């Protein structure tokens, strides 16, 4: 808040109490006016010197408002001054807010006042003028030395009311200032006006609630210090209250306009000056302030140009050869201006134009670079820098030229792409380099400069040799172009013949040759489009070469450290060869050429893997280019513990020992050198055998371990074992990095000490028995005839026909059915007869068969219709035993007339006796009393064949009246009883299996 006046500085406030007077009374004023008029008229007539002080009251006070600037503009006159009179006066101005008694500003304005002059004074309010009514009054006092003291203040003018609140219009409420544009860091007072009395006013600045001060019931205000830029669309201020009457405004906070930085001007063609600068912050605000403008002003010519761009501007150079320029760049926005100035001589601000580059005479090693810099005027000398980029290197050269430049680029590599570029600057008054201008070019190819590095692999098979030639691709620096093919020439040293080169197209790196046992010299050359490389020569000797013993190689952190004995004489060099991938069979043969004085090297390769065995062969190369094997070494880049254990076979098992044996496994699968084997044996009763030591396994179990130090030993005899015992064993290799995995133990049981003897006896016995059985089977017919011949059948006898034909034609054979038995013979077993059961080796032996007892059945003569006497056969298939009931002896039959009834009765009695005996036999049979009772069955008259089954139900018939019979199982009945079969049969009977 402050005051401005036109033409004079405002005075310091004075002591108001001394200068202020009470309100003018009408009468006093009247007299004062009269006095003033009188004095003025006198002065007009008299001299210029004023003899007494006259109060001159400011009149026609007018107050206008600039709301946007929050300014009050006061203008007034001092009518009392005489014509052409000038008088130094001081004016006191008071400003009140809301009401006249609330004076907020007192200011003094001192100036020389002329007759009829309109005086101006301005005051800027911190509060928007719309927010409150303001009152202004003014008074004056002569402050001129010509007027003697005392000097009095005039009366106050009347209060002038300034009320901008009318701008509220029809709106219920408003927030002021409206759309105010301020700079970042300013202090702003905001007010909120409503038509109704305000309650609970809340105001927010970009969402942040502010502390609000109530100026009057309808007006609230708050102050914001050091406002910050938030966004281009402005900072929103929003107020609300009870009753709901919301209003808002936007405070546009602009970034502070910065002074342009790095302002400079230069010319390339002496026609245009190109001026550039860094504009700094963007101060534009949406719908409020555009981007800051930039104006270029040249003081010597007085010309001005509004720049269209933010950071550059072109200035047309006049034709009048102006050398010196004084430029002022003015940046401007709505709030402020900033300017920078430069003064320069045009010839010191020359930046040459970008050169145009060409290349000519490009060969394999040279190229000529030419360039032209377009006019910079007056053939000025230019300093140029040339840069050559190629093969990862940068080479810089300098040249001084006028307009055209030329430079020979030499010592280039053949078939190589280069990039050469040039830029130039004024040599006399260097200002800036021009833009770089460059081109790529490629040198031409040249013949390969080195022979390819060749090696061979020879495999002999059936008198023929397969030679695989390998070569390494030439390095770019030696190939001198794209290798198109390799020429291989094979020369037979034993039989001179015509040499035929065999081209192998690139990028092949090997070829196979089938050679006989002669010696050959092989030439290999690499060829590109320009020429051929020197030949690489290798000789394949007819001599198969010597065999050398394999040694182990030392491994260091750098790789395999190989050394060999120096060869005396004609060694031109050494070659070390190895396979990079021996583990997958592809080999990937590698070799390294070494000089004749070298006897050691370190081989390393990214292909080397831990746990893979690498074999290195060291060859000496003779002057005749023959390679002969010197040494052979093997090793691991890193040894790993074995992954597998050998397959162990157990043999020679005896009651006290067994033998373990296993096979070697291929070296390719070994992950480290096997130093021996551990034989683990689980101890019996916690004691280890001699030679074994106790060891803890990885599963924390304890067992006995025997260490075999010799890796070539593949057998082990475990001794001092106990018969009929279980042993568990396990064999694993051990290496420098550990032993094989812990596998399952194999169990073995030692046999009984005598079991082998038993086997020696049993086997021959079984063999003999089988042999006998076979013999018996083969002679079964003979055996049958001897042991159990067939019972002769009278019907089939030839004797009958013989008798019939010769003696009696009526002679016939008596049928059994016609036979009326007159006696039944019962074989009574004597006391000594017994069946012996003796354990599993039972034998049924019939010790003695005593004289049989016979039961005679006397036939009834009358009823007898049979042809003759009955013939009784004793069938040995059945043993008939009499009942021991007492009636089963030789039963005397009363001589009653025999009848059928009687016969049947007798038979029934007999059967009863048999049944009774049989029932007894189901119980316990006392040994030595009776055995089983059988009744012999005679040949049935109903069937011609004794083996055929009866088809009719059993009918009581003569001579076939046996109701019951018990069959002994075949085994018992069969004459050739084996011991075993008898056992099983008796067992069956003993179990109560009975067959009716």
């Amino acid at each position, binding site marked *: 808040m402050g005051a401005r006046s036109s033409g004079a500085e405002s005075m310091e406030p004075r002591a108001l109490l001394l200068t202020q007077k009470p309100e003018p009374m009408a009468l006093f004023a009247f007299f004062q006016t009269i006095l003033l008029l009188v004095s003025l008229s006198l002065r007009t007539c008299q001299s210029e010197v004023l003899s007494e002080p006259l109060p001159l009251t400011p009149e026609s006070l007018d107050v206008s408002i600039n709301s946007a600037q929050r300014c009050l503009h006061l203008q007034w006159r001092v009518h009392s001054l005489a014509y052409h009179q000038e008088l130094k006066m001081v004016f006191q101005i008071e400003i009140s807010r809301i009401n006249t008694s609330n004076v907020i500003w007192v200011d003094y304005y001192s100036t020389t006042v002329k007759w009829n002059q309109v005086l101006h004074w301005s005051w800027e309010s911190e509060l928007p003028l719309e927010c409150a009514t303001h009152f202004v009054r003014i008074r004056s006092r002569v402050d001129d030395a010509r007027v003697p003291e005392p000097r009095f203040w005039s009366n106050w003018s009347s209060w002038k009311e300034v009320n901008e609140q009318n701008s509220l219009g029809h709106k219920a409420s408003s927030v002021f200032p409206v759309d105010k544009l301020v700079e970042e860091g300013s202090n702003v007072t905001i007010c909120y006006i409503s038509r109704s009395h305000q309650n609970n006013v809340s105001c927010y600045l970009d969402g942040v609630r502010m502390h609000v001060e109530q100026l009057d019931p309808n007006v609230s205000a708050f102050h914001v210090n050091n406002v910050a830029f938030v966004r281009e*669309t402005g900072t929103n201020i929003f107020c609300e209250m009870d009753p709901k009457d919301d209003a808002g405004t936007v405070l546009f906070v602009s970034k502070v306009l910065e002074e342009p930085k790095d302002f400079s001007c230069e010319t390339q063609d002496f026609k245009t000056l190109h001026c550039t600068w860094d504009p700094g912050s963007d101060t534009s605000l949406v719908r409020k302030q555009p981007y800051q403008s930039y104006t270029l002003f040249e003081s010597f010519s007085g010309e001005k140009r509004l720049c269209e761009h933010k950071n550059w501007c072109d200035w047309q150079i006049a034709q009048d050869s102006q050398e010196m320029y004084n430029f002022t760049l003015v940046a401007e926005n709505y709030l402020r201006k900033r300017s920078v100035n430069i003064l320069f001589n045009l010839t010191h601000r020359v930046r040459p134009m970008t050169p145009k580059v060409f290349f000519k005479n490009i060969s394999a090693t040279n190229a000529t670079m030419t360039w032209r810099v377009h006019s910079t005027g007056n053939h000025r000398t230019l300093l140029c820098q040339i840069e050559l980029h190629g093969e990862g290197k940068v080479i810089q050269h300098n040249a001084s030229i006028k307009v055209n430049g030329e430079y020979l680029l030499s010592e280039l590599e053949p078939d190589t792409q280069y990039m050469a570029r040039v830029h130039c600057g004024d040599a006399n008054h260097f200002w800036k380099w021009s833009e770089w201008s460059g081109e790529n070019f490629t040198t031409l190819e040249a013949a390969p400069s080195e022979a390819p590095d060749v090696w061979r692999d020879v495999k002999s098979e059936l008198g023929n040799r397969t030679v695989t030639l390998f070569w390494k691709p030439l390095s770019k620096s030696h190939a001198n172009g794209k290798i198109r093919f390799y020429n291989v020439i094979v020369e037979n040293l034993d039989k001179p013949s015509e040499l035929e080169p065999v081209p192998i197209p690139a990028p092949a790196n090997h070829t196979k040759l089938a050679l006989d046992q002669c010696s050959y010299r092989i030439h290999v050359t690499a060829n590109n489009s320009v020429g051929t490389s020197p030949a690489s020569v290798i000789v394949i000797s007819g001599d198969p070469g010597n065999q050398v013993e394999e040694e182990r190689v030392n491994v260091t952190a750098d790789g395999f450290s190989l050394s060999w004995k120096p060869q005396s004489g004609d060694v031109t060099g050494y070659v070390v060869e190895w396979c990079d991938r021996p583990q997958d069979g592809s080999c990937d043969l590698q070799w390294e050429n070494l000089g004749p004085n070298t006897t050691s090297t370190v081989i390393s390769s990214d292909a080397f893997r831990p746990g893979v065995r690498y074999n290195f062969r060291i060859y000496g190369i003779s002057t005749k280019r023959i390679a002969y094997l010197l040494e052979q070494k093997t090793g691991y880049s890193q040894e790993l513990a074995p992954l597998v254990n050998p397959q162990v076979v157990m043999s020679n098992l005896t009651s006290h020992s067994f033998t373990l044996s296993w096979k070697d496994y291929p070296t390719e699968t070994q992950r480290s050198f096997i130093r021996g084997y551990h034989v683990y044996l689980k101890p019996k009763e916690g004691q280890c055998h001699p030679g074994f030591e106790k060891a803890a396994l990885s599963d924390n179990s304890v067992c006995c371990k025997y260490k075999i130090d010799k890796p070539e030993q593949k057998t082990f005899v475990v001794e001092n074992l106990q018969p009929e015992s279980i042993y568990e064993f396990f064999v694993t290799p051990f290496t420098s990095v550990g032993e094989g995995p812990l596998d399952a133990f194999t169990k073995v049981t030692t046999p009984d000490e005598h079991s082998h003897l038993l086997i020696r006896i049993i086997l021959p016995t079984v063999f003999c028995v089988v042999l006998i059985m076979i013999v018996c089977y083969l002679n079964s017919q003979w055996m049958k005839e001897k042991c159990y011949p067939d019972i002769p059948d009278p019907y089939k006898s030839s004797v009958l026909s013989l008798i019939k034909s010769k003696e009696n034609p009526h002679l016939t054979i008596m049928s059994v059915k016609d036979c009326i038995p007159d006696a039944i013979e019962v074989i009574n077993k004597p006391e000594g007869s017994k069946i012996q059961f003796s354990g599993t080796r039972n034998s049924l032996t019939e010790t003695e068969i005593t004289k049989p007892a016979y039961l005679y059945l006397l036939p009834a003569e009358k009823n007898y219709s049979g042809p003759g006497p009955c013939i009784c056969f004793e069938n040995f298939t059945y043993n008939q035993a009499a009942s021991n009931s007492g009636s089963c002896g030789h039963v005397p039959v009363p001589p009653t007339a025999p009848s059928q009834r009687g016969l049947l009765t007798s038979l029934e009695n007999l059967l009863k006796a048999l049944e009774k005996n049989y029932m007894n036999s189901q119980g316990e049979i006392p040994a030595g009393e009776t055995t089983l009772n059988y009744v012999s069955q005679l040949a049935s008259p109903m069937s011609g064949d004794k083996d055929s089954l009866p088809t009719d139900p059993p009918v009581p018939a003569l001579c076939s009246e046996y109701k019951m019979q018990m069959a002994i199982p075949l085994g018992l009945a069969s004459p050739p009883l084996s011991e075993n079969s008898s056992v099983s049969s008796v067992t069956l009977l003993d179990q109560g299996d009975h067959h009716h």
Partner: protein
Amino acid sequence: MLACLCTVLWHLPAVPALNRTGDPGPGPSIQKTYDLTRYLEHQLRSLAGTYLNYLGPPFNEPDFNPPRLGAETLPRATVNLDVWQNLSDKLRLTQNYEAYSHLLCYLRGLNRQAATAELRRSLAHFCTSLQGLLGSIAGVMAALGYPLPQPLPGTEPTWSPDPAHSDFLQKMDDFWLLKELQTWLWRSAKDFNRLKKKMQPPAAAVTLRLEAHGF
């Protein structure tokens, strides 16, 4: 009875509800318009969020509800429920068409004043989509045989800042434009859903009446 069944089956293709080979009517275009309103509703949600953040608080606060001071010229989407239910199809479509015609003009004005290129791109994309909706509504009206409302000459609505308007009021107008647009899209979704149901043909149910003679 078999003959009767065969006759019915023979005439099935002639039943309009089942005949899919004829003129599909305005149904599909109404469905498409409905889908478009839902898509635009989704699109506007993102655009409005970006634009209100660009205006700054309190315009991007969810509960900000300023008085509708300068937005009186915007077509109002809110309408009494009874009135809305009793709107004829023609009037309903006409109101939609007129509203989006005006809103599209306003939105293009908004686009011209946007300060950032990204915002201008988003607004331009949305204007294109809204133009598509307008065309879709015109298509439905044409399918139903309703004429398009003709704008009165010289009454082309514009959305240029009123010099008498403070910038805060201008922002409020922008706020109301987006809010009214959103309300219109909600309403249009309901309008076209109602039209869709109304235009939907009756259910394709065929009742075969079999008389059991002698059964």
